[in-house]
């Protein structure tokens, strides 16, 4: 297992270099924005990666909270299953399909929603007990790093293209900022709390954060409809060649994120081992 790491690191580096080359040289220049638009090949994949990591943290936190009692664990399993079934079927029902935003295929939505229980059960199986908490802190920390990249590259992109660093009503950037704040507060809680059950408290905070995100999104959305703001990040359809390069960069960053998470995970495991040794030593007293 450990020997795979250097090999994967080299492969990932090659992939990142290739994806970067595609982003900077091969991808066509945007008609309106010129070459500056190429920032999206770093900005958008970092955002998707950060959201994925925060999602993993949320799943791990829920798993950690419900495992305390068998009844809650069973209830949570059923809810996850229900979400999967509803998500698989609902987008194809005509009444629901009409409500979907234009351009989103039902199969894409179904796939995305089905991933929720898939992640839930996979994480529950592969990370038993305390490993859930190690996964939680890992995904939160690496998620914050990627989210920082998003928040730094966003304004750097906005300034030359729209002339402003920041628009308070820009829904995506502002929601990302709030998500970043929530997870930084999560990391602060873990650092400052020395209770025996810090992990449970942090897991509860992660659930609160997850509940907050849709509320943030809608509150800013409505605020913006009342106070029209410049839309940073653009909407509309994307050139298929650009989409290809975007997805390639996302793959490269996912591999990179995986390696960073793996390192952080090992670090956390090592940290707990050291803490255990220290506790044992203090219990045994000073050796003669």
């Amino acid at each position: 297992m450990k020997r795979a790491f250097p090999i994967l690191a080299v492969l990932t580096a090659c992939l990142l270099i290739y994806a970067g080359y595609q982003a900077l040289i091969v991808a066509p220049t945007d008609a309106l924005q010129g070459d500056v638009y190429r920032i999206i090949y770093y900005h958008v994949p970092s955002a998707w990666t950060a959201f994925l990591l925060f999602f993993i943290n949320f799943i791990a936190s829920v798993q950690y909270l419900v495992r305390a009692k068998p009844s809650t664990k069973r209830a949570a399993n059923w809810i996850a299953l229900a979400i999967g079934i509803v998500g698989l079927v609902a987008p194809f029902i005509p009444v629901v399909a009409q409500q979907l935003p234009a351009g989103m295929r039902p199969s894409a939505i179904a796939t995305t929603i089905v991933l929720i229980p898939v992640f839930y059960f996979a994480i529950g199986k592969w990370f038993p007990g305390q490993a859930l908490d190690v996964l939680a802190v890992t995904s939160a920390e690496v998620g914050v790093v990627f989210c920082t990249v998003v928040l730094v590259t966003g304004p750097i992109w906005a300034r030359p293209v729209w002339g402003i660093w920041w628009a308070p009503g820009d829904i995506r950037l502002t929601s990302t900022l709030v998500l970043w704040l929530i997870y930084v507060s999560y990391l602060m809680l873990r650092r400052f709390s020395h209770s025996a059950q810090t992990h449970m408290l942090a897991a509860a905070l992660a659930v609160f954060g997850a509940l907050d995100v849709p509320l943030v999104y809608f509150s800013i959305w409505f605020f913006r409809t009342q106070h029209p703001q410049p839309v940073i990040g653009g909407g509309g359809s994307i050139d298929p060649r650009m989409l290809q390069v975007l997805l390639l960069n996302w793959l490269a960053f996912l591999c990179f994120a995986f390696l960073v998470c793996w390192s952080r995970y090992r670090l956390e495991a090592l940290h707990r081992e050291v803490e255990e040794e220290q506790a044992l030593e203090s219990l045994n007293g000073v050796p003669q």
Partner: protein
Amino acid sequence: MSSLWRLTLATLAKDIRLEWRSKDALNAMLFFSLLVVVIFSFSFDPLAEESRHIVGGLVWVAFLFAAVVALNQTWARELRNQVLDAYRVSPAPANALFLAKVLGNFIFVSLLEALMTPLFVVFYNLHVLGPAWQLIPVGLLGTWALVVNGTFFAAMSVRTRSRELMLPLLLFPISIPAVLGMVAGTTAILTGNNPAHFYIVLLLTYDVVFTTACLALFETVLQAE
């Protein structure tokens, strides 16, 4: 269910009695609130026309800081007298304690707001252009939003280093949609430019979601430390 309420009200009555006997915290908070309003009136020049657009934000920022100072006191007494340990081993539902604390904080913070509001009206020469009665639901729902999460996070912070600092660090990010609702709603009502209905619905949704979450998870937090 009724035993939950009886316990809640009993705990609330005890808290109010204790607070009333030593009015220190109450007096200090009142003076703090007055100071905040005065400082703000020096920081932001209150000319009549423009002030209406910014006062919504100013008022709620002032309320937010006053609320944090009040919330930090929430569990101090319980911590000093090992009440939390007693609660943990008793068969009493943890939510009764939580609800009592939230209601107590709600009453207290509402009192502060009721005292600060006329001061703001005076210093900023406020004249409400929209439907003034809507300020009441915005005020009540907004205060509940701050207080319910604040009481919960105060309990979370109880055994952390820098306890007083931890509370705003945890509370502010999560409260952002509620703050947006409060500020935008108040501004909408003061200026009369747009309807505040959505913000009231937003605050109501926020309150329902997070009151449920707090009640569901408070037992975990109480056991946790």
